[in-house]
């Protein structure tokens, strides 16, 4: 070390770049290492399908309790041809979309208003808490009472239950996010002479985006639950809720089929939110959602 210059004593490239064995580059990861998640996923999927198809039968579970996958598959073809499954799916999807959109808008509106008015939030917080804890789907019979018995009325019941369950997580998330905006950022805008509206639009609103989207994610899955309960309680004769109820007489495969389609609707809604989130929050480092400033 004594005869090297000080700069030479600090290698520009960290010593890790010098391999232990001369000429040895790190070996590429083995096939197994590189694809282990994929391989395990395939194994689990195969076990799941085999277990469902033959496992229940092997355990002696009667097929009118739990149908095989192939039975659900043929039930799908039957429902598609005879029951107009597409129509029912469209009705339910429509209710999910409208319920989710209205619930989200309402939740955002309330969240921002309460977020900007601490007094209103304090005064209303017991009611908000009570409504948050109350099982929202239990309001469904009330809505049946309000709306009546036409198909449109039954659809409105389903939509309204969805609005109610979607509303809360979004409002609570937005409210919390507006409250948590860094006061120094608001002061910065104030020194530029920003109006209240500018502070909202340029600071509070964009700062709340990560929290809003986690609320929307939760809301998108809850919307499907809300609509399903709304259809079941409303006794609608359209939609996947109706298909579910038909299963009570027509057998387990139809019940599973309806559940499957409802799940798919939920997944599509969730993915739509994720896609929107990626587009809106493009400025954030991945895995860093929800902590906008460090």
């Amino acid at each position, binding site marked *: 070390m004594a005869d090297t210059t000080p700069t030479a004593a600090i290698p520009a490239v960290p010593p890790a770049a010098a391999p232990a064995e001369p000429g040895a580059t790190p070996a590429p990861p083995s096939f197994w290492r590189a694809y282990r998640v994929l391989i395990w996923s395939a194994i689990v999927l195969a076990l799941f399908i085999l277990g469902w198809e033959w496992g229940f039968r092997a355990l002696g579970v009667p097929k009118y309790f739990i149908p095989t996958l192939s039975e659900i598959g043929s039930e799908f073809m039957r429902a598609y041809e005879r029951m107009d499954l597409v129509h029912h799916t469209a009705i339910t999807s429509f209710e999910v979309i409208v319920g989710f959109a209205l619930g989200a808008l309402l939740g955002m509106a309330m969240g921002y208003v309460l977020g900007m008015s601490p007094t209103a939030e304090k005064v209303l917080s017991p009611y908000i808490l009570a409504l948050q804890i109350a099982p929202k789907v239990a309001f469904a019979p009330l809505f049946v009472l309000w709306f009546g018995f036409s198909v449109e009325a039954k659809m409105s019941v389903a939509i309204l239950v969805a609005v109610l369950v979607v509303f809360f997580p979004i409002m609570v998330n937005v409210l919390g996010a507006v409250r948590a905006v860094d006061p120094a950022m608001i002061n910065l805008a104030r*020194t530029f002479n920003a109006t209240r509206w500018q502070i909202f639009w*340029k600071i509070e609103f964009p700062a709340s985006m990560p929290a809003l989207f986690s609320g929307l994610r939760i809301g998108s899955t809850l919307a499907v639950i809300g609509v399903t309960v709304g259809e079941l309680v409303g006794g609608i004769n359209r939609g996947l809720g109706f298909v579910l109820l038909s299963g009570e007489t027509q057998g387990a495969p139809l019940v599973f089929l309806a559940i499957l389609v409802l799940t798919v609707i939920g997944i599509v809604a969730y993915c739509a939110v994720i896609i929107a989130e990626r587009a809106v929050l493009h400025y954030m*480092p991945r895995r860093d959602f929800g902590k906008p400033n460090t």
Partner: protein
Amino acid sequence: MIRLQFERVTKSFPPQRRGGDGVTAIADVEVRVADGEVVALIGPSGCGKSTLLNLASGLDRPSKGRVYVDGSEVTGPNSHVAFMLQRDLLLPWRSILDNVTFGQEIQHVEKGERREIALKLLAKYHLGEFTGHYPHQLSGGMRQRAALARTMAMNPDVLLLDEPFSALDAQTKMVLQQDLARTLWEEKKTAFLITHDLVEAIALADRVLVMSRRPGRIVREIRLDLPDRNNPMVRRQRPEIGPIMAELMSLLDIGQDRLDG
């Protein structure tokens, strides 16, 4: 011409709890900063330095006394002053360019104009290649330079600087001090710099004010009369610095009571 003036300013805060004591942050502060002058303020932590800045920027009002900027009393935020804090406060959802134009956007400066000003400043602060980047993609020093550009974009008469470089590592800090000193000199800006860093105060300022423990009062004023205010790297090396440091340290009780930090 006096750009920034505190006239017998006292600021007290009401008690947090009932029956508690209120806090007098600063008492009878009298400061005048002339046009083009850079004045540094040092003092123990919690002595109300930042309170002074909030009063000057119009975010807060004094309990007693008056604050003037450019001869008119400060009654609220105004476009004569701009501040820069220890934290860069860049908005994470805006690109660097849009962060720099933020203040002008709020004041409805026409889009092409504010863009032009911002691009010029970003080039000056070596951020020309990063205009489209987002804050999280930049290092702490680069972010602070973007914050400086945002402050300068407002073309304020008075810059209020609250420990602007204290979160940076020592070398980045020196580079940024150099950028700031040069800008202040070239643009003949008036600045009021609050800092913990004695060397920073001596390297950047024309005068150093020393504040006492709470309630903060100005207990000492040191006129530096050193050359190279536009070149702190050179000024740091001057032999006169030692005795001034010693004086400031004894005023702040540094070395006598290690708990003061």
